[in-house]
């Protein structure tokens, strides 16, 4: 998996972006203070990402990952198209909310994907190569 070659100053950040009707992409970064808390063992190494629906949609399955993973994909909950993510970590056996994301809206599924796979520079890749 490709990674950035250089490290930029880290700040606490959780961002949720739409990918397609079924998936959100999310990534997080921790400030040096937060990272130190993970490294010291104050937080357990596993984080949990939960999606919440401001409009009251159905609950989603939390996604767990190592705190250093930095990014992942989460299914769009049914009945919930506009979501906000929150990132939790375990401290002393209790989940503690560390970060909240922006709100993001997932697109509705239109089907017909194959029929549309011709636009833009897609042509270069699909036809001429």
């Amino acid at each position: 998996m490709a990674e950035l070659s250089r490290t930029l100053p880290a700040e606490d950040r959780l961002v949720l972006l739409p990918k397609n009707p079924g998936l959100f992409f999310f990534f997080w970064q921790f400030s040096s203070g937060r990272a130190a808390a993970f490294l010291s063992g104050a937080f357990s190494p596993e984080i949990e990402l939960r999606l919440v629906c401001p409009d009251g949609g159905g609950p989603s399955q939390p996604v767990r990952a190592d705190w250093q993973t930095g990014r992942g994909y989460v299914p769009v909950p049914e009945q919930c198209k506009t979501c906000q993510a929150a990132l939790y970590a375990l401290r002393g056996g209790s989940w503690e909310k560390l970060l909240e994301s922006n709100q993001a809206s997932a697109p509705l599924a239109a089907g017909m994907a194959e029929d549309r796979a011709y636009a833009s520079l897609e042509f270069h890749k699909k036809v001429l190569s």
Partner: protein
Amino acid sequence: MSSRGSLMFVLHAHLPYVNHPQDSGFLEENWFFEAVVETYVPIISALERLAGEGIRPGVAVSISPTLGAMLENEALEAKLQLYIESRLELLELELSRAHNDPALLRTVKLYLKLYEEAAELMHKYSGDLITPLKALQHAGQIEIITTSATHAVLPLLARPEAVRAQLAVAAEDYADRFNRKPAGFWLPECAYEPRLNSYLKLSGFNYTFTESHSVGLAAAAAPNGVYSPYRTSNGLGLFARDAASSREVWSSSFGYPGDPAYREFYRDFGYDGDYEYVRPYLGADGIRRPLGLKYHRITGAGSDLAAKQYYDPEAAMARVEAHASDFLARRMKQTDDFYAARGARPLIVSCYDAELFGHWWFEGPAFLESVIRKIRVERLPLQFVTPSEYLNSCQEPQELSPGISSWGENGYFDPWVNETNDFIYPAVYAATDKMIETANRFRNQDLSAVAARALNQAARETLLSQSSDWAFLLYIGSHAAYAKGRLEDHAANAVKLLGEVAEKKVDEAALAALEQKNSVFPRLDFRVFASVSKF
């Protein structure tokens, strides 16, 4: 003959900002040189020819701000001139080499004409291709629109400040370049989400374009489908792309550019030619690479490159005429079918990347010219119309709230957010968040000239980091190392400059070098990123 429907061609011309003034042979600058010779010059020439014949093209052309900046960059113009001269020199040699090979000679002469026309047009306009475009717009022949400042996929910018900055800089850049306010906005990658409506309207745009299925995804019924314009609740005009007319041009199974008579893109003399013969025309590293001289035709789907037959320009032009006629016949059937069903005259909106015409589909500019000319010459019951003309003359459009969509593969954001490129977003957001935070901090402060320059350059670097091109190049695996390096450079440059301003330790020499290299948007004011903009 009265019109049975309207056609709207939208050509979106965009290249990422590539400018390496310290390097005389930077590979990626060839993207620009190839596009100028193979796409922009042929399309401008075709538009001028049509206008000269009294045939108003009536197309909309989107010029991205980064492309506009490159078209006006004198250092790039000088390099472009050298590029053209180099190809003309090689083609003179090729004339001798092909002297006893009539089949090859035809195509060599065709390329000679192509490069000579490019040289002539560049000379005619003193190297500035914005001038003829501006003149065509001024004469009412075409309508020029813009797109986001650095072609950012706007739904992937979560911060409102970042979206506003992309739009505000684009609007200002357009006004500087074309001496008027822009009416239309091309959403990069046709990527739409409803929150953009208000930003677009607040930035002064009257209309934009969405992908076909955005209409089907709208909450309200849209009985006219993609065949009429719409408006959002805040009065922004919307045109939906017609899938059928795009599919005929670009379908991988039956699209016109795959015709066996058309020029083969991948077999290039840079790979075929004797090494010592082509060596002076390759880069400084001497690695074989495309020279833009492609002497073969597609020949057959899936045929091996080595088995390709020589290109025959006359046979290809015959297919252009046939394809233009077929395209128009299909549009007339579309209009007839729609009229029969709805009792109204439809609008067919056909949107394409401009670079597909000429660069990828060599015969594309001739196809466009033929389509436009045939409507007039053959007195076909269709008319070309620009977006502003249509909105100014049509009935009040139905209100619609289209669905989130793009014209990329699968119709959403997969090409720009996937496991080949998702690692870039922390860097993009690190630069963007820092830029917003710093703009808020310094927006009302008195600044030294150097600090202001550093903040403005940081804003340029931030905008450049947000370009959709880096993610797309990583996705298709083309120039991936360059894309990754560019993105990282811009993000790191922005963060570094912002840190230097905060610490009052601006490295003036490094700043000057960045200002020379990444010199887009000369009037950019960093405050455009502030949360409450002064603009």
